[in-house]
Every structure is written in C-alpha cells, then in structure tokens.
C-alpha cells in the first residue's frame, strides 16, 4: 500500500474525460471490466463490453457491487456418484483478472469488511479468488445524496479505503489518486497526464465541500457497548413495528454477507451452491425442533442492528455499515436506519 488518504496524494494524475474511452478500451483488452450501466430506470454494476456502456453521472447503483465478489448464487462444487464412487469437481480459479470501475467509495469500503469477515482463520477461497484478481477503481462523490451517511460511519464521500485507484470528477477530467501499488500501475496508462497544483487545490476544495454537505447521524460514543445494555429495552418493539420482514435491506447492503448452502440434485449428481440469505427471514434461525430463537420481526431487526453496530465493531473493529443509504431509500416502509441508531443512542434503557 502506498500511504494515501486525505491531503495531498502521493501519486496522482489527471484523466481527461475525452481520454476515458481509450483507457477503458485498454482495460477491456486485458481484463473483465465491471462498471455502472443503465438498465431501464436504474443503474447497476455489470460487466461491460464497450466504453460507451459506462454511465458515470450517477448517484449510486441500485444494488451494491458485492455480488461481483460474493454472487447471489455460487456453485461450490459438483458431485456425481457412480457405482459407489463419488466424484467431486471444484470450480476452477479465475483465469482473467478483473476491474470494477466507477463504484462509489462507500461500496469500496464495504469490501474491506467482507475481507475481514470472509478472511481470517477460515479464509473463503471462493471470495478471495475473485477479490485478489480484481482491481477497484472508485469514483468519489462530489454531491452525496441526502440519504448518504458514509462520513458518520467512518468513511467519507471521497474516502480511498478499499480502492486501488480513486477518481474525483473535476468537471473536464478526473483526478486519479493511486491508493495501492496496483492502482499506481494503472496510472502508467498513456491516457493519464501529470497533475498540477491547481487541479490538486480544486480537488481538495471539492472534497471538503462534499464532506461539509453531509448531515451527520447522531450516534452515541461506544454505541457497541450501549446496544448490549439496551438489548431488552422495549424500544425495539416500537422501532420495528412497521418492518415487513422482507430482505431488501440485507440484500442491497454492501456489507451483509450471510448465506445458505443448498444441494441441487438431479438423480445421482448435483451441485452444492451458496445462496444469499437474510437475517430478516424467519427461516434464517428456524430450528428443526420447531423452535425459532428469533420468532418475530423485532428480534430479527434487532439482530441486524446489533450485528452492524455492536458485534462487528467488537469482533472486526469495524462498523457493519458503510452508510451507502440503500436500505434508507429502498425500504418499502421507510424504516430509516439513521433514525433507529439515533433513537437507540438517545434511549436510556439498561
């Protein structure tokens, strides 16, 4: 890692907007490229085949880019039994390296949490196979959405965390900051020009203005400890009363990683797959005995909040929320996580 972060970046160049297509062309020659594209009314991060597909004038993609590393449906192995013999077949590693281009800093930062959870002692080979071979080029937010709250979650609209290269829109071009060595290598591309003092000053100003424009979320110091104390507080019932129990918040979340394993068999052969699962579903904790330790939406919603704001900060030293705001905008009943955190922070239970 090249020491990066805020202030004057150690290694930055300018990418003029008219040279972006040629840069993407060259990326496409060597890598599979994922980028924001328009699908109907929404923006999604999808594999692209031509630079013209890319849309960079956008707020954020409807779905988080986690599926590029942690797909909704992922085969873990296939098996076949024949005459008492079992053959097991494991997916091959990735052959071509990839780049995720133009995602937002909150989503890039979300990958850091996935790295921690899926890494460690029991390293998830399926995830890291994709992660290791994928460069992350993110696009800083110069006009954060009113539903965004990354700054309060420890990130920022122009945070380089989780990215290899960070782009910042200077209107006629992008200031490209290398965050990692792999990112710095990308700056060798002929599309990039040397940056000048003036651009750096403009970039600094944009960053500051972008941060200032964000409304902070009122959050208690030591929330992770406080939440443990209010675990049995009646406030949870009031907070979750409107929750419909769907999985939108968890499925669109860039850091939710819970999954289920299923066997899909046909006769003597089949496939073991990993599919996304959600703590908001009753089946998530339903036991074979019939007991469900999280029987209602209250317990399930509480789990989501506790996991993000108490358990993960304790076990991984990182909040389980990057403040992308998807759950805020997409919740069918507008159950706003910022208000929940605020309400729990102000509560005096326990």
């Amino acid at each position, binding site marked *: 890692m090249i020491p990066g972060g805020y202030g004057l970046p150690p290694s930055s160049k300018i990418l003029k907007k008219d040279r972006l297509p040629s840069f993407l062309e060259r990326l496409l020659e060597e890598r599979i490229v994922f980028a924001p594209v328009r699908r109907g009314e929404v923006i999604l991060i999808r594999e692209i085949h031509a630079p013209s597909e890319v849309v960079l004038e956008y707020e954020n993609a409807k779905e988080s880019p986690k599926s590029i590393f942690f797909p909704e449906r992922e*085969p873990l192995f*296939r098996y076949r039994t024949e005459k008492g013999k079992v053959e097991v*077949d*494991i*997916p*091959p590693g990735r052959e071509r390296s990839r780049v995720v281009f133009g995602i937002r800093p909150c989503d890039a930062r979300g990958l850091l949490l996935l790295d921690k959870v899926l890494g460690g002692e029991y390293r998830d080979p399926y995830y890291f196979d994709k992660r290791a071979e994928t460069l992350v080029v993110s696009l800083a937010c110069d006009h954060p959405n009113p539903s965004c709250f990354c700054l309060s979650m420890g990130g920022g609209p122009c945070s380089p965390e989780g990215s290899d290269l960070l782009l910042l829109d200077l209107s006629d071009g992008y200031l490209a900051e290398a965050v990692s060595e792999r990112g710095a290598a990308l700056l060798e591309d002929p599309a990039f020009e040397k940056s000048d003092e003036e651009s750096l000053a403009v970039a600094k100003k944009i960053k500051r203005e972008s941060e200032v424009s964000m409304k902070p979320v009122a959050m208690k110091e030591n929330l992770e400890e406080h939440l443990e104390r209010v675990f049995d507080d009646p406030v949870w019932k009031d907070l979750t009363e409107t929750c419909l129990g769907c999985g939108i918040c968890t499925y669109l979340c860039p850091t939710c990683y819970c999954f289920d394993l299923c066997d899909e068999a*046909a006769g003597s*052969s*089949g496939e073991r797959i990993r599919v996304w699962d959600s703590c908001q579903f009753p089946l998530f904790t339903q036991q074979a005995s019939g007991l469900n330790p999280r029987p209602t939406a209250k317990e399930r919603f509480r789990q989501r909040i506790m996991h993000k704001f108490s358990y993960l900060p304790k076990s991984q030293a990182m909040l389980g929320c990057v403040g992308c705001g998807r759950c805020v905008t997409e919740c069918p009943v507008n159950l706003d996580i910022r208000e929940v955190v605020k309400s729990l922070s102000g509560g005096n239970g326990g």
Partner: protein
Amino acid sequence: MAESGKWEPKILAFLCNWCSYAGADLAGTSRIQYPPNVRIIRVPCSGRVSPFFILSSLQKGVDGVLVSGCHPGECHYLTGNYSARRKFALLKSLLEFAGVEESRVQFSWVSASEGARFAKLIEKVTAEIRELGPSKRLVKTPHQGVFHATANK
C-alpha cells in the same frame, strides 16, 4: 428416447383413481394401442392435483403434462373435479399468458368405461407435444458435468 435416437416426448399424466386411471386400465385390458410416451401418476382425484405438481414436472424437464379426472357431475367425491376445473382454468390461462406453449399442459375428462377415449386422448396429446418439440421454457437446466478436467479427486 425411442429407437434410432430420435427424440420422443416424455409426458406425465396425473389420472384420478376412480375414472381416468380405470379408463387407462380398460384401454390396456382391451388391448387398445396408444403411444408409450406417457407416464402415469395415480392421484385420488383431479382435485388433488396441485399446480406445483404441474410446474415441478415442467421444471424437471417433462415435455408435457396431462391431467384427467371424472367427467363433471361424476366425481367420486361429488365436487372435486368442479373445484379443480376452476383452478385449472386459471392455471392454464396463466401459463399461456406467460408464454408456455398452449399444448404443453392439457386437461381432460375420461370415465372408467372410456378406454377408447383414453387411447385417443393420449394419441392426440402425444402428437401435439411431439409437434411442439422438446420443452425448454420453465425447464431448470441441471448444473452438472465437470467445471474443468483436472479437479476430480
């Protein structure tokens, strides 16, 4: 697959115990020939046939589904087929609306005395489904085979 490897449709028939299954039996004991493409599942009543039976069959790759019960008014349970008829009318319309070919899923009534009608029904249904070709829509393509050649252990 028939001889010479030519494709032949696989058809699943849900027949009610009291009429259509007995009708199929009669066709057999009367030695009436009908196409061998049909696999029969005996159910107590056409009213027992859940839409899931039909969709699951299509998902697992059968080329056609036939459901047959007693003629209206002759149900062993008096009204089972009347209730089923409403369900089937909606299901058939929904599947067609979604683009599933009209002849893929068919419904009929065959009584215990109608061995010849049963044979004719199977001939008609088989011919129509053969005409359509192998089923593709709704079929869940099995994820099988090897990912790559060297991973076997």
